[in-house]
């Protein structure tokens, strides 16, 4: 494969290309979804193809082929060069590449004990059946019960004009349960729990994280929401639980540090490097490899889709903005080293600056101490996702929560919405717990520029934040 791709790269260079990147992805994804104990979906997906990213006089062009015949592969490279040439005359800001040392003979295999893709179908189905049995045992007035199994495995090959040669093998496992209970008034209340990341099946055998634990949690939380009240609207103190903090790190802050937004000034922090944006409790990391343990189910990503080693990057340290996330071209424009953040969801897309595992680092409080410090406010838990706008306005959703008074949980709340401006919110972080949780999933994922569901890791400790605006009913 390397020889064939490099021969085409040479041909494109002889036709005027300034730089060429070639990528072969072959991913195999298997999912099983059961809905109310019926198999809703049992499928296998093969994504295999080659993409070429060509640089020509400051413009880039990308084209791909799922047809792996030699003629089709070469034609896609020619198309990419043609597209780049079409753009060259209109470029105001040039996309260029700073030379890097060639990397050869990189072939990294995953380090896990029980790869999910090696077990039989019946064993995968059994995981879902176990969740169903437990959910029914603990749930109340269940209107709907959904269980999910997803796995991703495969290989990625990369080479370029520097004759770099990298081969590695991505993998993910995702197991989750969603329970919906119906109140006597007919209202439907959902809750879910998940175990997901670049993990093996051994991670589903750890106490508190077994399929039974996921199902029990989902069932009991949905049951609790049946008596939950709507969250009040207005500004309150908040204690945000770990997964929700991960959404804050990724959606509300991380996107603002992506190099393409920085270069195009589409982020409010494009000119704030070195400035204090948050309190001393705000340190956010983005990295390709986070050492895993029972609470850290990160995504494993040793190299990005431009063949750059995925570095450990400190975005913000004790409140001070330290660096942005770069592809090779955005790094060149800002005269810094690429960080290994150029990622594409599959071979049909060009790599663009994206996050990897993004999380707040932990503090020193226990949950009890954090509740005490919160005093009165909203304890917001789990997430339905969130988003941020270029002015820093953000919104993120918690699935459930509690109203807290004098450090004690008073009553459960239904899903709550947290909004505001991220640059104000980061200044109001008053403390962090010592427990660090990270997860990354196959079902769901990050969306940007039409590239949906890119697996990313998110997480953090629990954070105490003052003066958070909650959208709710008066």
């Amino acid at each position: 494969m390397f020889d064939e791709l490099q021969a085409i790269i040479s041909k494109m260079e002889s036709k005027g290309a300034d730089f060429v990147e070639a990528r072969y992805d072959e991913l195999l994804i298997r999912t099983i979804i059961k809905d109310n104990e019926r198999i809703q979906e049992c499928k296998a997906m093969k994504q295999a193809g080659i993409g070429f990213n060509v640089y020509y006089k400051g413009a880039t062009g990308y084209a791909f082929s799922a047809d792996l015949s030699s003629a089709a592969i070469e034609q896609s490279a020619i198309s990419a060069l043609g597209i780049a040439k079409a753009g060259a005359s209109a470029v105001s800001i040039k996309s260029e590449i700073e030379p890097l040392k060639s990397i050869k003979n990189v072939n990294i295999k995953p380090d896990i004990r029980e790869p999910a893709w090696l077990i039989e179908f019946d064993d995968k189905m059994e995981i879902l059946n176990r969740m169903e049995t437990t959910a029914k045992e603990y749930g109340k007035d269940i209107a709907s019960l959904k269980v999910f199994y997803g796995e991703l495995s495969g290989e990625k090959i990369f080479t370029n004009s520097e004759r770099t040669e990298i081969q590695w093998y991505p993998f993910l496992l995702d197991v989750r349960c969603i329970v919906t209970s119906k109140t006597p008034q007919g209202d439907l209340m959902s809750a879910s729990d998940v175990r997901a990341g670049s993990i093996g099946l051994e991670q589903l055998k750890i106490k508190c994280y077994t399929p039974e634990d996921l199902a029990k949690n989902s069932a009991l939380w949905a049951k609790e929401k049946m008596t939950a009240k709507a969250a009040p609207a207005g500004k309150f103190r908040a204690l945000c639980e770990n997964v929700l903090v991960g959404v804050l790190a990724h959606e509300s802050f991380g996107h603002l540090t992506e190099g393409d937004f920085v270069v195009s000034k589409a982020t409010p922090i494009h000119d704030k490097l070195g400035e204090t944006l948050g309190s001393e409790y705000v340190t956010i990391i983005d990295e390709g490899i986070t050492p895993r343990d029972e609470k850290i189910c990160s995504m494993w990503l040793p190299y990005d889709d431009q063949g750059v080693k995925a570095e450990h990057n400190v975005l913000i340290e004790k409140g001070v903005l330290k660096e942005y996330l770069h592809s090779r071209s955005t790094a060149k424009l800002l005269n810094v080293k690429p960080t290994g953040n150029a990622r594409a969801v599959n071979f049909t897309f060009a790599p663009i600056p994206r996050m990897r595992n993004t999380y707040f680092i932990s503090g020193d409080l226990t949950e009890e101490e954090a509740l005490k410090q919160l005093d009165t406010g909203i304890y917001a838990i789990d997430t339905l996702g969130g988003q941020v706008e270029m002015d820093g306005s953000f919104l993120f959703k918690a699935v459930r929560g509690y109203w807290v008074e004098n450090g004690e949980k008073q009553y459960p709340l239904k899903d709550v919405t947290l909004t505001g401006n991220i640059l104000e919110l980061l200044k109001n972080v008053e403390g962090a717990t010592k427990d660090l949780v990270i997860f990354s999933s196959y079902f769901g994922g990050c969306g940007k520029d039409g590239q949906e569901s890119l697996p990313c890791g998110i997480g953090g400790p629990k954070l105490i934040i003052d003066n958070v605006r909650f959208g709710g009913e008066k």
Partner: protein
Amino acid sequence: MTLDFDDWESDLLSRVERGLKFGTSRGVDALELYITNSKSLNVKIKTGMIDATEGGNIGVGCRCVTGKRIGFSSASGITDSAINFAIESALKISKTLTKEDDRWKNFVLTTEKGKNGPIDDSVLEISNEKIVNGANLIFHEAKNCDPRIISIEGMISVGYGAFAVGNTEGLSKSSRTTFGTMEAMFGASENNKIKSYVNVIIGRGVPKFEGFGAYGAQNAVKFLKSTPLNQTSKMNVLFNNLTASQLIWGSLYNSVSGKSVIEGRSAFADKLNTQIGEPFLTIHDNGQIPEDPKMVAIDDEGFPRKKTLLIEKGVLKSFIFDQYYSQIHSAENTGNAKRGGPQSYESMPSIALNTISVEPGTKDIKELASDIETGILASGFLMGVGHSEFVSGDFSIVAPTCHKIENGEITTPIEPVTIAGNFYKAFNQIIAIGNETELTYRGKIPSMAFKGFTISG
């Protein structure tokens, strides 16, 4: 050799036919193939950078039924080897399953077709250079419009595509479309304050580049003058047509899906033929709007796309269905089978809205505002609709671009506010419906005024 677009449908149908023959030779009980091919040029507008990429949705999805056990597999590419891989893999899965789906009956079998939308030749004829120059024009137009414009972030996507569906029960159909969309966010800055505005055009042909950048830039600059609302209270809210389309989509997305009804997740499950909204509210799901790039002749499992009455004068008249759930519910298939995502061939068909149309009223947006003593006007893209809890219907969303309504007049711009309510109760909170008829983000939905949402800002 490059195939002429006029020949794409027949090419895909022949691939379906070869695949079905291969599947039959492997001993399948029943088989469905969905094969798609598309080509687009996507040009990013990134404040002067030009990133152009060729896009495509090229692959095969296969459902294979053994007994009543259903396996699905997909493969990227439409070569015979990709198609045969998908068939073999789906067959293997269906044979591996141990439990039958006793609700399964059969794939779609009908000779009917809806209408294809008009093919706009402009997307077939335009050169890559002209699209790139269009992106450049938008950038310079916005930049030159006002010195306070600091960023333009968006994408032009122009292309065409076709798909074919066939099954071993005799169905063999195809359809095709053309599309041209532009979306860009314009950022303005003054005195450390940043405001943005999103402009969108959706159609079947090459969009008109001229004026798009200036319009977006002018609107972004307007919101630099916004001030905080500084209150939390129940208020009347007027949504312009783009914003109303997102709210109405949120109200229908889960509630009218036949799947949600049957699986116990729809708030409207027991409300058929009952009053769920104001008596002047009539809504269709319409898969046959000619200017809509989503208008094709068939849905993603080959059933004719059509226009379905969902709500008539406030009364819920129908849910939407694909083949599987229509048979369970003993209801008519409404042609709403959809395979989602940028690679549609990777998805099994599931029920989704086509394009929503709300019957317009008689007043324009200023006249709607004049009927509101005090409230807000929400315009542009809402944050958080897609992250809402669609089972309960409770929503709390952020409207980034709003104006005050004072004494019936649309007055000053205000900072983002949260709007909280319930998607399903909202149908009974409508004050009036505007008279716009153009296609926006989620459909042909006019401006709409609502009472009693909680506003905080």
